[in-house]
């Protein structure tokens, strides 16, 4: 409690120590006077008593002085409370739902659902609390930040805090909510703003996995064929004139990259770097950028190019993919507007809905079309590409 972890902690602890100090003085005073009287006026030592019926001014004194003290105590607590209830304007919002017996988190600014709560250090965080209408009352409590507020079914309540030091902090449920009340504990992780961005991208990448992310990591699952995107055809349209049909650079020998040789690459021969090259070109060379290709098409071409590399080139790691998604915000890329016959769509949908909710979510209708491409289990052989 000595090193405050947040502005609210500092304010609450200050009030708390003042109250404790005054209380200790009063307690010690009452106890010592009581013991002193019990010893000083013990029966063995007293022959006479003094019958005093009262003393009005003394009574007024010990009514007025405590009244002043408690009024001051009220303001001590009030001051901290005002701080607690004055949410800074730049606060980032996290919506928290309590249910028997877990907490879940939604970051509206990132449109992100999460099972963990991660916040950037130094950033004010407004927690908007609720519980589902058919659930019970919970209470969101972070002891280290001295904040607590009930999550009431069907209502919105709020609190805010600002973590001033990185670390893991307990989140407890403080309102009795049944059998596993004492297990309704989770961790709040306060990290540097950079780490926080990383975390958001990683979460987003996970969330948008069915879209481009999966297309990069697994072109087969992406179902390019169904989308009518053919990396090979695009290669033959745009690339073959310089790089040659086999990718050996035979169209413009000595100038165009020979994909079959490991030496002299400006970027690495990973899919992600090939994508970067397609997106940005290589300045100072004749390799230009291809903004006319959609991200989906670039992914398809990158994979095709990669398939031409026969030597032991390094493969992409999960981090590489995540970095690429973050760099170009590929998680925001909408699926290409492609249509498929209704019977085919129905067939895929019914198959998806019989699966677990996690995977079937991938076949959510998006912008009026079906994001079938992302459905990992679509067998390319089954696919019926549109002419």
């Amino acid at each position, binding site marked *: 409690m000595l090193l405050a972890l947040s502005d609210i902690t500092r304010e609450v602890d200050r009030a708390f120590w003042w109250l404790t100090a005054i209380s200790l003085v009063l307690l010690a005073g009452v106890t010592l*006077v009581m013991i002193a009287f019990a010893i000083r006026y013990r029966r063995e030592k007293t022959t006479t008593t003094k*019958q005093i*019926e009262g003393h009005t001014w003394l009574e007024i004194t010990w009514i007025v002085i405590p009244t002043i003290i408690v009024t001051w105590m*009220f303001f001590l607590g009030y001051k901290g409370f005002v701080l607690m209830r004055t949410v800074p304007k730049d606060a980032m919002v996290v919506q928290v739902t309590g249910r028997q017996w877990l907490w879940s988190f939604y970051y509206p600014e990132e449109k992100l659902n999460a099972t963990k709560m991660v916040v950037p250090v130094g950033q004010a965080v407004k927690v908007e609390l609720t519980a589902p209408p058919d659930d019970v009352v919970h209470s969101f409590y972070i002891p280290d930040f*001295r904040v607590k507020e009930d999550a009431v079914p069907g209502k919105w309540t709020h609190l805010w805090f600002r973590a001033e030091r990185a670390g893991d902090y307990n989140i407890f449920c403080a309102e*009795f909510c049944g059998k596993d009340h004492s297990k309704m504990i989770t961790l709040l992780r306060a990290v540097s703003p950079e780490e926080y961005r990383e975390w958001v991208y990683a979460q987003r990448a996970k969330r948008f996995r069915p879209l481009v992310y999966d297309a990069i990591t697994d072109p087969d699952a992406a179902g390019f064929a169904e989308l009518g995107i053919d990396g090979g055809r695009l290669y033959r349209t745009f690339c073959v004139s310089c790089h040659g049909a086999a990718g050996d650079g035979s169209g413009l020998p000595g100038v165009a990259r020979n994909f079959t040789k490991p030496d002299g690459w400006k970027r690495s021969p990973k899919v992600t770097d090939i994508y970067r090259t397609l997106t940005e070109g290589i300045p100072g060379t004749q390799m230009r950028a291809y903004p006319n290709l959609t991200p989906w098409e670039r992914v398809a071409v990158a994979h095709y190019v990669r398939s031409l590399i026969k030597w032991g080139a390094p493969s992409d790691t999960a981090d590489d993919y995540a970095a690429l998604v973050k760099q170009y915000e590929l998680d925001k890329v909408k699926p290409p507007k492609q249509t498929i016959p209704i019977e085919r769509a129905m067939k895929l949908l019914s198959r998806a809905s019989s699966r677990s909710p996690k995977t079937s979510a991938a076949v959510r209708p998006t912008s009026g079309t079906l994001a079938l491409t992302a459905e990992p289990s679509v067998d390319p052989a089954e696919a019926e590409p549109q002419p």
Partner: protein
Amino acid sequence: MTAITAPPSSLPADYLRARSGVWSWLTTTDHKRIGLLYLGGMLVFFLFAASMALTFRLELLSPGQQFLSNETYNRILTLHGVAMIFLFIIPGIPAVFGNFFLPIMLGAEDVAFPRLNLLSWYCFLAGGGLALASVFLGGPDTGWTFYVPYSMKTGQNVLIPMTAAFVLGWSSILTGLNFITTVHRMRAQGMGWFDMPLFVWSLYATGWIQLLATPVVGITLVMVLLDRLLGVPIFDPARGGDPVLYQHMFWIYSHPAVYVMILPAMGVVSEIIPTFSRKTIFGYKFIAFSSMAIAGIGSLVWAHHMFTSGMADVARVVFSFLTFFVAVPSGVKVFNWLATMYKGSIKLEPPMIWAMVFIFLFSIGGLTGLMNASLSTDIHIHDTSFVVAHFHYTMFGGTGVIFFAALHYWWPKMFGRMYRRGPAYLAAGLFFVGFNMTYFPLFLAGIAGMPRRYADYLPEYTIYHRLSTIGSWILVASILLMLWNLLRSLKHGERADDNPWGGATLEWQTPTPPPVLNFSKQPDLSRGPYEYPTEVQP
């Protein structure tokens, strides 16, 4: 009751021996016998509730699950709370000592409505029986507050304990009504309002709270039943009801109930301290009016239990502000008690020791109450074990301790036997150690963030829980020693004088134990309830 054959002497038979047989007890309308009936029932409920606490404290000796599942833990916790609050702390002092001594202190033969008095005991017994029965019918697991919507959703049977609370409410209302009427109508000829002992004043203030606040809890419980059984959407948020409304209604009763618990205890202290200090009470009127002030202000502070409930911020500020002012009349009482000891002639008999233990423990309870009343600090410690420690210091360290003090103070008058001093002192000393060891660590755990009503806890809280559990063993041992010492005296104790402590209130003028109609001769009202000579008689 009057048609009793008199013993050979000219004195009327004492109330214990006037009639005999179980039936004579079950149909008695003698307020003293009804007081003892309450005492008997209450000790059973108290020991039952204490054994529940001992059990779950043992479970909390170490982190992780020892021998109680979460469900069982929650049930035991609930029963402990329900039994202690509704069957011991709320009715305790008024029903036992109020019933026994209020009419005697007023110089009356009985309470105003003796039959109603017996009915309220049967309500108490029925409510207590229902509460115990619910243990065997599944056992509620909601905590004693029955918060909705959990209490409407849980599969456990909460209807029976709620009905029990409803029936107990009747008992409380009838007792309050009886006491108010008795104080107004039954005072001895010549006894004015300010000639009444302060214990009577405190019971009078309590009676009003019981009468005015208890119906609200009855209404609330009926609303829950309507919601749960007939589907009237009052509290259920899934159908548009409001769970926070329940919390308001619950605390509109249950916070004033806190003063039902503590005011009579304060009244007893105002009797004990003058008696053992041989001194008139300091500031009689201030103590009397502070009881009424506590009853009044205490009725306007209920929502300080709800600072995190999501109610409007302005309401939280108002209720915090009002709450602080309950501390003032409570402080007035403590200062007046100390001033009463000043220049007295103090004899540290067991009841006085218990009263001093009370002043210390209750001061801690009251002062930590300020930390709960203060908005920003309460947000942190609300629903943590800090609150658990706080209300055990006030309820148990306050009302419970004074229940024991009153037992030691009036035991010789009630039963005509004196207990042994040695074990009584030893029990009080052990109690003091055990009590602080059990509850003080919970303050620290609460400050460190330990939520209450947790069947299990994170390893960093082990030290607090372990100390508390070990303390609970000492605490229970001290209580058993005390009860053994008292009960033993019934058979082996010395015969007690009519006035063993030299008290000035009217109960010390009657024979010990008192006769059926309380007085064998007209009580002498010339001496006030706190009039002592300046010369100290040994």
